[in-house]
């Protein structure tokens, strides 16, 4: 029999039978993967449910208005004569501002420290520093926050004065009341201290995975160490550093206690950019500040604040992962 020419209709279905162990493992993985998603969803729904009274009362204004007033504890819609009024904007904006300051301080320091560990320090020193940094990254960040609070903040006041004295022609270093305490700058500094270990640790890990053959290839072309790092290590590690920075950002935005002690909250005014002014906002600190004496309606407001923080953090992470995927895709496609 002469075999005929085959067509698509003859394509066979390729079946790979799964072993039992594969099936079990797969089930565990799927369970694990979906669980974390459902936990996230459950938290979100819980926050929405608990904050429903204020969301219904103020709608989108809850996120865009600038006021935090408890009044007699009841909203206007329940016929209160001294109605409570909640608008979170200065707090939400302040959270982002403080986190941004923390990143601007922490990321360059972390990247330089990580490069130093990987490429500049003598072997013994770098092993010791790696150990310390990894250890520091595993310590709860609040420990650093408290240390920063007591040791760093007194100095930060002096640095802030210096910045203001010499750079006040740059609007962000200008102040209206020169007290220099409890400013977004100080809060950002404390946060930077808290996230530096984790960002350093992740960056170092990424840098250490730069393929040796690329490093050798660069050296063989007469590269200096600095040129090798700029052209080989940094492009290779960029995505990972952004990821580490975003992990740090997540921590920075959610941090409560440390910021609560070092930032003056202004509920009804937004400090847009004067980072040395004793005036700022922070959602997490707001929750700490108000939780103790909150009435039931205000408590709903605080849950709403939690919801906003949740969304902000999630948003920051989405932005981060899109940055990572864009920069890695760039490597493959954009040079077309």
């Amino acid at each position, binding site marked *: 029999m002469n075999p005929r020419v085959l067509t698509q209709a003859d394509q066979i279905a390729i079946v790979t039978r799964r072993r039992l162990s594969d099936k079990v493992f797969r089930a565990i993985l799927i369970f694990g993967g979906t669980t974390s998603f459902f936990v996230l969803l459950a938290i979100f729904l819980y926050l929405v449910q608990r904050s429903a009274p204020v969301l219904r009362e103020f709608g989108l204004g809850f996120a865009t208005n600038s006021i935090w007033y408890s009044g007699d504890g009841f909203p206007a819609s329940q016929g209160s004569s001294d109605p409570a009024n909640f608008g979170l904007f200065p707090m939400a904006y302040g959270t982002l501002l403080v986190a941004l300051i923390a990143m601007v301080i922490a990321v360059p320091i972390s990247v330089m420290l990580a490069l130093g560990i990987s490429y500049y320090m003598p*072997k013994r020193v770098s092993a010791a520093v790696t150990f310390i940094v990894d250890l520091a990254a595993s310590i709860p960040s609040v420990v650093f926050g408290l240390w920063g609070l007591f040791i760093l903040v007194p100095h930060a006041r002096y640095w802030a004065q210096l910045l203001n004295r010499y750079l006040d022609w740059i609007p962000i270093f200008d102040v209206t009341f020169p007290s220099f305490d409890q400013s977004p700058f100080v809060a950002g500094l404390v946060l930077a201290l808290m996230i530096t270990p984790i960002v350093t640790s992740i960056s170092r890990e990424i840098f250490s995975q730069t*393929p040796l*053959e*690329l490093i*050798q*290839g*660069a*050296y*063989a*072309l*007469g*590269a*200096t160490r600095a*040129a*090798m790092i700029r*052209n*080989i290590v940094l*492009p*290779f590690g960029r995505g990972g550093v952004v990821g580490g920075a975003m992990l740090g950002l997540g921590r920075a935005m959610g941090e409560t206690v440390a910021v609560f002690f070092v930032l003056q909250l202004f509920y009804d005014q937004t400090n847009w950019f004067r980072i040395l002014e004793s005036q700022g906002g922070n959602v997490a600190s707001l929750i700490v500040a108000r939780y103790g004496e909150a009435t039931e309606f205000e408590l709903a407001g605080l849950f709403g604040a939690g919801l906003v923080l949740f969304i902000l953090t999630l948003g920051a992470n989405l932005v981060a992962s899109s940055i990572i995927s864009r920069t890695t895709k760039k*490597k*493959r496609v954009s*040079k*077309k």
Partner: protein
Amino acid sequence: MSNNSPEREEVSIPAISVDRSASLGSSAQEALNDQGAPVAQHGAREMEAQNLHIWFGNNLVLEKVDLVFPANTVTALIGPSGCGKSTFIRTLNRMHELIPTAALAGKVLLDGRDIYSPDVDVTQIRLKVGMVFQKPNPFPAMSIRDNVLSGLRLAKLPAGDKESLVEECLTRAGLWTEVKDRLSEPALALSGGQQQRLCIARALAVKPEVLLMDEPCSALDPGSTLKIEDTISYLSDSITIIIVTHNMQQAARVSDYTAFFLAQYGEPGRVVEHTTTSQIFSRPKDPRTESYITGKFG
């Protein structure tokens, strides 16, 4: 391991014919000593290892290596695995010292000057002595063009006319016609053989005097291998090439001189024989060389 027959006959190895014997006379006439090995003239583009000993930690892996690589010639380094060929070649452009335990004694001369003398700038040495690795290693984040130019960027050299430099280097590496319409594509879009020729072009862009190649074809198909051998023959008109290879035919095809390295059990590696390629493949002096190139061990 050594040849059993006490009376050794003249061997001829029919499978291996030497192509390059004719070209020896055509390049500048090299002086040969009575062993047939080249004699140092301390001129431009000449490399020389003098009494070189190489260690990893306390482990002496190469002992008393004396080799001369005359200008504009191709020298093949052959020998069984682990005898120290890669280690040796890496001392010629100071890549050896990147390994923490590495140490050496003796001298390596380029243009008659010791490249390990304290006043020498290591990056300058690596610019003059280029290297092509066993596995093609183009920079993945860069396009084909940027890979060719990467040496200029890494060593902060002034780039003149970039486009003509790219064309010149790719042409000399035998890759230009294949990639001239896709210079801005990522380097990883090339086949393995093309990547290796790109790495050669990249090494040529900084205008080296000497090119080291450590098994440049071992990951490549026969077609790509032949292309790279053509490239080597072509390049040897203007630069000195030192190539490590496990392929005897390749050594015979591309090289003017051949050095045979051997590390006998428990001993450091040594150069057993160093002479013209035609001689080593037709009348090897040492029985161990003969058994190695006829495939009896290694």
